[in-house]
């Protein structure tokens, strides 16, 4: 078996696919930056990301997939599901083995698993469009912290750019340690360390706009007022809003400790 080591990016993986065909590598297993027990494998193949090679693979996929299928394929990569690169490679092999479009051949295992991963990413992106909670700082920046299961920030940036066209905002992915910043004209990707300690009342008054805490309290009040007690259904509540998201949702964070 050959361990194919790439840099973790989509382009890196596409380069790897190109080289597997180029060097006729067999029995390959992908690894992000060698993050895998290398001893099990007989040899390593280190991939250096090459955009020309990556584009060749992309063009091949483009010719054989619908526009939807093509963008779905990328979404599957962003799902970060375990061993998704392996499934994507099987899918690509199947795609390249035939001239007709097989992206809806759902009884094929790779096709089905790609669809599942794609939908997972899509669902997570939709959730993040919903669950971003901006806080307003003193210098009028709206910022939010998210920790999505899949790497969706670049999938949702245009949604926020179109919607909040007249306010500066920053959305930071605390899991992947990067953010997207909008400066009223353009989007840019920023890498920074964001202090993510427990939010104290003092912290809020120090960096936030004077109305910020009040609006958060209004939102909490609204959230509890629209609930109908006699219809309580916590199972459904948690199904829609799983607990892993609660720490970034203002309405689900316990009241701030006033000092």
């Amino acid at each position: 078996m050959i361990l194919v080591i790439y840099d973790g990016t989509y382009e890196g993986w596409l380069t790897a696919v190109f080289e597997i065909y180029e060097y006729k590598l067999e029995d390959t297993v992908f690894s992000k930056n060698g993050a895998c027990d290398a001893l099990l494998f007989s040899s390593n193949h280190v991939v250096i990301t090459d955009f020309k090679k990556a584009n060749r693979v992309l063009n091949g996929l483009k010719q054989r997939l619908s526009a939807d299928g093509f963008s779905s394929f990328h979404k599957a990569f962003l799902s970060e599901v375990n061993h998704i690169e392996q499934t994507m490679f099987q899918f690509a092999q199947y795609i390249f083995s035939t001239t007709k479009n097989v992206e809806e051949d759902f009884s094929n295992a790779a096709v089905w698993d790609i669809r599942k991963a794609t939908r997972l990413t899509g669902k997570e992106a939709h959730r993040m469009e919903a669950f971003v909670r901006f806080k307003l700082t003193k210098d009028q920046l709206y910022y939010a912290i998210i920790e999505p299961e899949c790497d969706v920030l670049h999938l949702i940036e245009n949604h926020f750019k179109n919607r909040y066209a007249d306010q500066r905002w920053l959305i930071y992915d605390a899991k992947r340690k990067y953010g997207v910043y909008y400066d009223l004209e353009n989007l840019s990707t920023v890498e920074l360390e964001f202090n993510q300690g427990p939010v104290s009342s003092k912290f809020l008054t120090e960096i936030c706009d004077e109305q910020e805490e009040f609006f958060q309290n209004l939102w909490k009040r609204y959230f509890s007022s629209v609930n109908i007690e006699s219809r309580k259904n916590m199972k459904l509540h948690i199904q829609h809003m799983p607990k892993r998201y609660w720490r970034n949702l203002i309405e689900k964070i316990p009241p701030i400790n006033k000092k």
Partner: protein
Amino acid sequence: MVNERVMEKLGILADAAKYDVSCSSALSNRKNKDKGLGDAKGYGICHSYTEDGRCVSLLKILLTNHCIFDCAYCVSRKSNDIKRAAFTVDEVVDLTIGFYRRNYIEGLFLSSGIFDNADYTMQRLVRIAKKLRLEQNFNGYIHLKAIPGASDELLKEAGMYADRLSVNVEMPTEQSLKLLAPDKNHKDVIQPMEYLKNEIVGYKEEKKLNYKAPLFAPAGQSTQMVIGATKENDLEILGMADYFYQKMNMKRVYYSGYVPISNDNRLPAIGTPVPIIRENRLYQADWLIRYYGFNVNEIVGLNQPNLDLDIDPKLGWALRNLHQFPVDINTADIELIKRIPGIGYLGAQKIVAARKFKKLVPHDLQKFGIAYSRSQYFLAFATPFQMQKDLTSIQIKDKILNIQKSKYKNDFSNQLALF
């Protein structure tokens, strides 16, 4: 700017608005204009979910809960001894913008108790929408309640700013409305619906000819019926809903299980359970009619005026029509596949796409996430042809009920028996 007093008002006026179940923010497609604030997506976004499991998409509030009417089923009725409050126009505008900019909501759903008279109330609602659109360049979603009895001019103005308008019929029949809402007039409810329908159709036609023509309530109109407060059966309710869909071009009819809030002896007593299952079955039937090609007469009829509570309406229909099964999923038309219990809209699409590549077998359906345990009694597979034992409707129903576990099992009774 909003101040501390607003906190208390928000509590009162959000609480009073929560019995209106509509929270849709879909179907509008309003675009961001001149780099202003907001847009309304074709699909809605649920920003949060309450502990009762309902979606929170809009800031849903009453402008005021002062009301000159005394409708028995309503918390804000004149004779009810509750705290009253009223927002100012600016307070509603600031709240909406403040929430929207923080990505808490998709927009505003504004309703109101009727103070003074219908026109006066409607004027206030319109003024808020106008201010949001023209002064704040707000392009998010706005749902306004059309106040029964308001003038056509005001409704027209409302349509210019709102994405959706709704008039709640509240009671499924005229008699019930008379009984519980003596100040309201059935005609006053139907008339604005009819007016809005014609305007919406008219503007849509105009938009086709001239893309610069203004939007008029692009997300259409909806209405709501209270379920379980009065004695109407499901045939009457679904018949009424069908009338709204066919004749009024309604985008949605909402069914709101009555939450007992009054000791009035015309209504179910406080403590009576909310008819949650019945409400759910009505929504299922509603979906079958709108998306699955069912006719209302196939789901309820004179000899069967109420939906089954223990099984869903599609299964109920299938059991009454066993002669139409089994359906061969490898060859049948998608419309027939959609009628198989346990196979939904998406499931049917997956089947039709995947069968182009190979003959499907039961295992494939299970993989597609289709409820095979329910659908198996209604399916045929081409090769090898699977012989279905000849089961009667009752046998199939028993088998399916045995594998289902509903936490509401004990509630499968007709809640109307409680008068």
